[in-house]
């Protein structure tokens, strides 16, 4: 279509004649123009456009409008994509990471309660009130966290199912522990069987579900983190395109007028450039901060949480082994397994989850508690070995004393070592949690202002474009 149709009302046959001979497959345009009786508003507009393109002012207007549209698009896309990422970062900080941490804490409270139950059982009638209190606190804590998790509306249906299940099973578990305790107080071996059953319920039903809940929340957290870190390709693409169009418009302007600068368009270009640089710069910085959070602190947290759980489980098995009174080696084997996961199989080396946490710790404040936990775990392992040897030699009371203290206590119990491991890991987890929140906040903060800035800069650039193009248009009057 090299010719341009003249005044639309008189030209339908021409248009039809222009397209019909080409004899190609009917295009939408030709279909529209082959209906002579009435003309669509679109065709009318297209005609106007074609008319406008024949004159320089018309072309200028068109270029100006296109640039303005692109700038608005750039601003809008930027606002949209930055909003998405800010929202994702906010979800990470306010919802999914706390939910993941909360699930980890539910899990830990349950393991802790199970461990405290075994410790108290071992002491029997001489149960330390602190141990009893710890058990009560753990159950309270787990129940409260479950209630909080259930109330959190951001939780998915799947998460709610897990939480409901845990809420149902927790009282069953505590009931079993109380039966065990009552029988044990009367000196009946049946108490031990009940505690074993309670432990089995804890391991195979409660903890399994709590772990699934944790995995679910952690997957969601990682997903949100990925969203927050995603590069805003559309916004950067549109921004680059807008800048190219602006550059082309100014070059055309230069070629036609020999004037180097159009101040309006120059201002628009600068504003668009600033916005693009801001967009990319802010994202580079935000991603680096979020990476600190997700690959630094979050990985540390994961290793530390894992180590903490393993330590608690090893302690529970250590005590359950003594509760079992040599009925089987099941708990001793399980202790060894957890200890190996915690510290690695070689007593001379620091490996396992604690080794990993030590490697991941990236500052002195984070490293110190991990080192303390490693030292206490090594001490625990040595003491346990001594206690186990006594148990195997038939010195059961001495073995129990080595685990929980008491009249035969050598003064240095595995319980003390474990308490240190527990405290150190708690401190390390708190530290890494702070690190995580700080880094994630930093990441979110680096995107802050970008939305407002995008709107302002885009409008500024549109204004500049209007002024620049308007001044050129004025020259044609």
């Amino acid at each position, binding site marked *: 279509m090299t010719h341009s149709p003249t005044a639309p009302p008189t030209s339908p046959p021409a248009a039809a004649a222009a397209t019909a001979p080409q004899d190609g497959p009917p295009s939408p345009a030709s279909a529209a123009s082959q209906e002579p009786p009435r003309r669509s508003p679109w065709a009318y507009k297209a005609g106007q456009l074609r008319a406008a393109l024949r004159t320089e002012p018309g072309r200028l207007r068109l270029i100006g409008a296109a640039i303005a549209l692109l700038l608005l698009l750039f601003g809008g896309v930027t606002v949209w994509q930055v909003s998405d990422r800010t929202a994702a970062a906010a979800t990470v900080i306010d919802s999914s990471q706390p939910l993941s941490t909360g699930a980890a804490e539910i899990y830990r409270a349950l393991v802790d309660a199970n461990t405290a139950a075994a410790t108290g059982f071992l002491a029997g009638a001489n149960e330390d009130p602190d141990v009893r209190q710890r058990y009560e606190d753990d159950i309270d804590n787990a129940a409260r966290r479950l209630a909080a998790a259930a109330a959190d509306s951001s939780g998915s249906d799947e998460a709610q199912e897990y939480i409901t299940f845990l809420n149902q099973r927790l009282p069953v578990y505590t009931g079993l522990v109380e039966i065990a305790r009552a029988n044990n107080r009367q000196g009946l071996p049946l108490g031990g069987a009940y505690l074993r059953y309670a432990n089995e319920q804890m391991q195979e039903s409660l903890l399994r579900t709590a772990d699934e809940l944790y995995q679910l929340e952690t997957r969601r957290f990682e997903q949100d983190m990925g969203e927050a870190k995603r590069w805003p390709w559309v916004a950067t693409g549109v921004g680059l395109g807008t800048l190219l169009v602006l550059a082309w418009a100014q070059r055309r302007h230069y070629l036609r007028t020999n004037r180097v600068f159009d101040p309006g368009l120059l201002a628009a270009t600068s504003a668009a450039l600033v916005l693009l640089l801001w967009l990319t710069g802010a994202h580079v910085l935000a991603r680096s901060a979020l990476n600190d959070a997700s690959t630094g602190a979050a990985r540390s947290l994961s290793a530390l949480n894992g180590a903490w759980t393993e330590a608690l489980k090893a302690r529970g098995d250590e005590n359950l082994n003594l509760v079992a009174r*040599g009925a089987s080696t099941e708990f001793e084997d399980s202790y060894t397994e957890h200890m190996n996961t915690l510290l690695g199989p070689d007593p001379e080396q620091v490996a396992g989850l604690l080794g990993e946490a030590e490697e991941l710790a990236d500052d002195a404040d984070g490293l110190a508690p991990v080192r303390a936990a490693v030292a206490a775990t090594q001490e625990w392992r040595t003491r346990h070995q001594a206690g186990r040897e006594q148990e195997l030699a038939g010195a059961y009371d001495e073995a129990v004393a080595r685990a929980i203290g008491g009249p035969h206590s050598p003064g240095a119990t595995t319980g003390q070592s474990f308490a240190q491991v527990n405290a150190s890991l708690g401190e390390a987890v708190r530290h890494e949690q702070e690190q995580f929140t700080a880094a994630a906040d930093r990441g979110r903060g680096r995107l802050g202002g970008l939305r407002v800035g995008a709107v302002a800069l885009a409008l500024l650039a549109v204004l500049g474009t209007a002024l620049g193009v308007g001044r050129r248009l004025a020259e044609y009057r």
Partner: protein
Amino acid sequence: MGSVSTVGTPGAAGAGAPGGGPGGRGGRRRVRLPRGRGLLLAAAALVLAGTTLVAALPGGGAAAGAGSAAGQAAPAGQVSSGDDLPLAGPQLCDGRPVDASLPPARDPGDAVAAIRARNQLRVGIDLNSYLWGYREPDSTRIVGFDIDLVQAIAEDLLGENPDIVYLAIPTAQRTQAIQEGTVDMVVRSMSITCDRWQDVAFSTAYFETGQQLEVPRNSSITGFDESLDGARVCSAAGSTASRLLQEQSHGAQLITQPNHLDCLVQVQLGLADALMTDTALAAGHLAQDPSMRLVGQRLTDESYGVAMNLANTDLVAWVNAVLEDYRAGGEDSQWRQSFDRWLAPYLYDGRRDPPPTPPEPEYLEGGLVD
């Protein structure tokens, strides 16, 4: 009473026999009737084997006529598998009674000398078996029917206030602990079976028991019969009870747990309707939960023995000599005193049952292994 050692010197002869050799035993082995006093014992044993093995010990108050117990407890088609299932009636391993052991003798050999040199007896026990071997409430003392016997053996070997090391041994490691010498003997309500004779030596029987059903007081289950249909019955994994139930379930749904006590937990929690274990362990259950009771007939005849290393024939003969003394004395015997203290309240009903008596010993001619 050191005068029982009348029958040869099997301790010295057996010491040379290597432990093991599972394949080649049985050919020469016969039950020889000991002379003198042994004749009386043998006569009693024959009568017992022929008629009322069960009568030696009343089964949980529910033991009706012992003869009928022996008759009913061996349903058609089950006796053939007697090598695995110690069903009612005399059980033979390669032609000899399963609970026959070396004749009693106090002739110190290497094993006894080693224990005396150490001045300490190491015994594998169970610390979770109520009435048999457990820790007394609020004390660190280990007590029970098994423990009384250990005490008697240790005093006989080492004198007054013997040094005894009690090692709690998991069920699965009993034979291993004996073979490796971790313990001198295992006294842990351990049934004498042909299979176990391959790995360890047993003393003569010190207690007779058998599998029986145990139910809550209000249960409608009446015994090992159609009343089990649809019920959930619990037994310890790998136990005789579990094999019995697998062979003939009477429509019951089987539940297996690691330990017989875990089955009591299942029943108490309503997760099982009944459990099957031997009457000796059931006594411990009844003592811990008076609302349980034994129903039906005793389904098998099993004997508990002291397990020792196959090579330690001097020790086996010595323990048998101790058991002779332990059983002797009728109502005043040490055995009876221990029974009255621990088990009578749960296994003996004076109105219905004949007075409890220890099992009659059976003795072998020659060594333990060929």
